[in-house]
């Protein structure tokens, strides 16, 4: 046994020294950007939100480029970040990241800079102005991805069971809600921003301007609101099917939802409606980003080009229910779903609606205004969220 203990100790020490000494090389962005795409590698591995990569538009891509696509579905931005970092960034080639993941990936050097000259949509004005170089995927003029879909976290409700039709989020937050235990909330710390958004409208004395830049006092108030909501929540959904199943069997009747969930229920002819209430809504604008150590970079670049095609964006918008980032997709979308759905439900390429959504972003200590570095960062959000969720 002594022999083995000695061997174990040696291994242990070696492991310690090795981990202490090894450093991961971070890709230096902006050094040599390719201007043309090389030969494709035959395979592409993507991390995507459910509903972003359906066979309807993935299969033509596979036939066109010969890149066989493999998908990992993530439920939260945190999972996307974690997956992109596996194996030093070699496991997955690209990700459809939301704003609360993009900056973390950029700062840590996990994603590669791209050359906008490779994508005509940047220069010919097709991409919505707000999404050409937004802070969540462009840093100091360096672009780290191409825009995909954007949308809001809507208030979805069962039209037969929730009467009168709601116009505010209050039936999901206030204690006098008639739908106790049938409310659905999103299972991620980023949902704190939804609470903050509600307080921004209903408790202006707190002084909340950006629901992602919360001081300690403001965060306390948001957490208190979430704690108040906690006993009324029937399910915190992480998988879209949790919410869809709940609405299907009637155990959930109102709550926050993605356009994808809403569309799925509509397709199954369930009596649901979804709105952006008076207080506004949180939302997301997703970017396709490429890993800085991608094993199939050419296939990924081809995918990025493919997804900027207005026909593809229109198809995705039709299926998912979110808005394209490319303006020329809207006429096509109108042809697919009709004017009413394209404009009133999907808000196709509507810059007004986009500017009013509180897009997901990573909370950091730097408040970005005259409050300095007094805001709470995401790890605090995570801990506080766990306190609410675990009680």
């Amino acid at each position: 046994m002594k022999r083995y203990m000695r061997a174990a100790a040696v291994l242990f020490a070696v492991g310690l020294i090795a981990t202490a000494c090894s450093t991961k090389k971070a890709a230096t962005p902006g050094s040599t950007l390719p201007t043309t795409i090389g030969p494709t590698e035959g395979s592409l591995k993507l991390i995507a939100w459910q509903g972003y990569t359906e066979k309807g538009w993935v299969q033509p891509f596979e036939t066109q480029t010969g890149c066989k696509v493999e998908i990992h579905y993530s439920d939260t931005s945190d999972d996307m970040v974690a997956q992109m970092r596996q194996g030093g960034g070699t496991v997955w080639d690209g990700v459809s990241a939301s704003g609360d993941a993009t900056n973390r990936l950029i700062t840590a050097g996990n994603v590669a800079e791209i050359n906008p000259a490779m994508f005509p949509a940047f220069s010919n004005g097709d991409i919505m102005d707000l999404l050409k170089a937004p802070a969540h995927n462009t840093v100091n003029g360096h672009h780290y991805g191409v825009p995909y879909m954007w949308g809001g976290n809507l208030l979805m409700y069962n039209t037969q069971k929730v009467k009168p039709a709601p116009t505010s989020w209050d039936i999901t937050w206030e204690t006098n809600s008639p739908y106790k235990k049938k409310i659905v909330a999103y299972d991620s710390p980023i949902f704190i921003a939804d609470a903050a958004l509600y307080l921004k409208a209903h408790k202006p004395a707190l002084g909340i301007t950006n629901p992602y830049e919360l001081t300690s006092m403001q965060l306390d108030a948001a957490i208190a609101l979430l704690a108040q909501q906690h006993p009324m929540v029937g399910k915190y959904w992480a998988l879209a099917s949790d919410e869809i199943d709940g609405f299907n069997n009637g155990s959930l009747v109102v709550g926050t939802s993605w356009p994808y969930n809403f569309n799925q229920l509509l397709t199954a002819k369930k009596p649901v409606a979804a709105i952006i209430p008076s207080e506004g809504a949180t939302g997301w604008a997703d970017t396709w980003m490429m890993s800085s150590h991608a094993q199939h970079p050419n296939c990924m670049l081809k995918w990025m080009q493919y997804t900027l095609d207005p026909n593809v964006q229109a198809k995705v918008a039709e299926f998912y229910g979110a808005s394209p980032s490319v303006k020329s997709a809207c006429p096509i979308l109108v042809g697919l779903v009709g004017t009413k759905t394209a404009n009133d439900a999907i808000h196709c390429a509507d810059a007004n609606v986009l500017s009013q959504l509180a897009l997901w972003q990573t909370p950091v200590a730097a408040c970005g205004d005259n409050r300095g570095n007094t805001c709470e960062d995401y790890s605090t959000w995570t801990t506080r969220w766990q306190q609410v969720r675990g009680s």
Partner: protein
Amino acid sequence: MTVATPEVEQPLATARKAGARHRVSAFLHRHRGVRLGLVLGPPMGWMLVVYLGALALLFLSAFWRQDPLTGLIQRHWNIDNFRQLWHLSVYRTIAIRTIGIAAAVAAIDIVLALPIAYYAARIAGPRGKTALLLAVVMPLWSSYLVRVYAWRVILAPNGMLDWTTSHLHIGTFNFGFSNWSVLIVFCYLWLPYVILPIFASLERVPPSLIEASGDLGAKWRTTLRRVILPLALPGIVAGSIFAFALTLGDYIVPSLAGNTQFLGNVVYQNVGVANNVPFAAAYALVPVVIMGLYLLGARKLKAFEAL
């Protein structure tokens, strides 16, 4: 002088090969240490390098920290993670909730397993035994995830269970996403793993002992209580290890069938979601320590021979 003809060469060659093999065999026979090393080396080497080394490194990282913005692990030694676990009561709540349900699952499964294990071991004939064991093992071959989703359908409001009980005028349970659902699903999932060790140890009880007990005047109930069950205790403890351990760390069932957080959920959210491996490792020490103690106790009760 004999010339090595082909007919002689063959047996010579085999004799030489056999001779080499004999020499190796004799060498090994004399050098016990080398024999032991060859036999024990590979499995222990594997466990040490692949498992224990990785585990040690993981729990070492519980003393490190994660940078909030980049998410990269900073190797500064500190006990912040443990301090946070201690001060925030929610982690105690979650741990107690998990341990409570794990204990309940183990207890309920033992009660459910005993009749079927006893019947298969001591009452059923050989064909009945095969059939029963097959029936117990078959559900394990249909994916764990699919079975959990099947229970979601059964326990949903207006699902199969409520539909049946309302038609039988018993009323509705309305389990839905709740701790009750989680309990039912856990009890269901691990039941075969509890039945098998109990069956194995009940089968090993020598019939002569039972006869002797009867000869000494004990009724069956007394024999059961004072002879059979104590002898089957290792199997019962072994089964309870499965039920308890598997419940303690599971995060999939609480997130699919329930609505509250369990130990596994917190660990998973911190490693697979927030990528805060140091904190996840710190909290993961809780079930590890609990299982370590449980296993030590089980070893005293000789459960390992019944696994």
